[in-house]
């Protein structure tokens, strides 16, 4: 690849991914008005309608419009994944910074809990935690966030250790900056790129986890229009209405690919040599 092209490719990835994410977010916000159909309202006279002009993506076993439902699911899935990612990022970054700046038992405690949470398989933990805290939007967000913060903490800790030994940080300390000022004013800005890349990939992981848990009937309440629920609802009707499967499946793939595009593009922009140990 020549230099012009190699500089162009990450921008292209970023632009395409960003465009997709933007379009999806717009659909999530404004789509309801555009479709004008209730995602929960069924029309038993119009069950299993293949995609046509009235129902762009067809209808399901209760005659509910799949386009309206997939858009409602978009709002649910995007906000759940976004909030879970933010929770994980905030907890993980704070603890990672804390472990890098302090020494002794506090650092050991943070590093120990990182190892502990990472060593135990996430999905299994999520299934058990949800059995305890119950189904619903906030329990799901909390579970995903609480189980996935070590991903951020580990990387932030490792990167911060390197940064803390840099001369500019030492200079800041000499000029009287306290711990908080060093961490917030000097470390966070330097971690911006790494964090952006991680956010994009983590968002994709959270979306997959959310739809898997919904599919198992563990995340969203039954009947709620989420993509996992829609996939589960499609199973008994595969012979009659394959579009019931393809619509939510396509939606999940589209969002995850968009997030991966953004992540990849960011990773190459942040670190063009591709040496970053992320993903």
């Amino acid at each position, binding site marked *: *690849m020549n230099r012009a092209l190699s500089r162009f490719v990450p921008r292209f990835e970023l632009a395409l991914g960003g465009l997709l994410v933007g379009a999806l977010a717009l659909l999530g916000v404004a789509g309801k008005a555009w479709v004008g159909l209730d995602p929960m309202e069924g029309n038993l006279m119009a069950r299993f309608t293949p995609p046509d002009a009235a129902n762009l993506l067809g209808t399901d076993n209760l005659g509910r419009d799949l386009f309206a439902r997939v858009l409602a699911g978009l709002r649910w899935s995007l906000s759940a994944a976004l909030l879970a990612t933010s929770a994980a990022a905030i907890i993980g970054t704070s603890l990672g910074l804390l472990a890098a700046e302090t020494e002794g038992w506090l650092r050991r405690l943070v590093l120990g809990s990182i*190892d*502990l949470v990472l*060593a*135990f*398989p*996430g*999905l*299994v933990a999520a*299934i*058990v*935690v949800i*059995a*305890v805290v119950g189904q619903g939007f906030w329990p799901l967000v909390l579970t995903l966030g609480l189980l996935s913060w070590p991903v951020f903490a580990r990387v932030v800790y490792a990167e911060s250790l390197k940064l803390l030994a840099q001369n500019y940080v030492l200079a800041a300390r000499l000029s009287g900056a306290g711990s908080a000022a060093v961490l917030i004013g000097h470390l966070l800005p330097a971690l911006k790129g790494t964090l952006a890349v991680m956010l994009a990939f983590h968002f*994709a992981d959270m979306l*997959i986890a959310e*739809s*898997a848990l919904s*599919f*198992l009937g563990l995340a969203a309440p039954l009947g709620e229009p989420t993509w996992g629920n829609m*996939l589960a609802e*499609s*199973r008994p009707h*595969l*012979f009659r209405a*394959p579009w019931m*499967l*393809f619509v939510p*499946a396509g939606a*999940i*793939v589209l969002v*995850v*690919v968009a*997030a*991966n*595009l953004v992540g*990849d593009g960011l990773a190459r922009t942040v670190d063009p040599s*591709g040496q970053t140990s992320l993903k």
Partner: protein
Amino acid sequence: MYAYGQPMLAIITTRNSVEDSSARMKRQQLLARLRDLVILLLAVTTALFFMLRLAGDPAMVLAGADATPEQLAALRAQYGLDRPLAIQFFMYLWSLLQFDFGASLASGVPAMEKVMDMLPATLKLSGLAMGFTIVCAIPLGGWLGARPETPARRIVAAIVFVLQGTPGFVVGLIMIQIFAVDLGWLPSMGHEEVSTWILPTVSLGAFLIPKLTRVVATNINESLQEDYIRTARASGASEFEVLWSYALPNAMLGTTALIGTMFAFLVSGAVVTEIIFSWPGIGWLLIESTQNLDFPVVQAIALVITVLVFTINTLADLLFGLLDPRIRVRT
């Protein structure tokens, strides 16, 4: 007589002491690993015990929905559920130390027996999926990582990228639709005949292959820029040899950890795939026993999975050391 006797002896003793200390270090590392495993198991057990008690009352599960308060009280007394929670916890730990994992609340069968019945199916599926993933991803990754960048390579890379964004269970559902429902070529359920292995294996592979392929491709691409490759070319190795017998072994080093992680994921994370294909493994058992609040079985599954994942990760680390002499020397 031996002019160099003294120094020689010195060298020999130094070497012996080096070997001694490296053996000691290995022993220490092994002990540290075991200590980690014990801490991990204790943490998992403790967390699960209290979380599961928060989720529901075991006596209610045992007695069923239409039990009278007297029946519940009798059951609580029988199982020691009327004692303080802390006492119950230490009693549970004590029985665990004696390898007594309790009996399933749903069926009365020993919980560990139930898990061990299901484990072979999960291990079989994990092994099949891992084998399939390695067999597909390494040649594909090697080819993608080689130069020059042709249109064919770019198209395949794009397909790999899209597949990477497709969760395994979505692939599984789509394959059931196509190969079981529409075409009727393959069964979507069962686990004994070879034909029933194909769809679950491929759907797990479809999720893992893109990830492994990309890592192999990146590593190959980096290896190809190393000096030893130039030396190999200069000494007359063909491009084929350079790629597969010079660059690939080096590229594989960076993938052992990932393969370990993937296998650990398969042992624990094939839950959804097992549900979709009605594959009677521990993922399937986990969902069933969580929904029935069958505490002893959930606990036993968690312990088994923790030990399995830990063992796999440790083996991957050891393998990494065996494959890469540089690391062996350093540790």
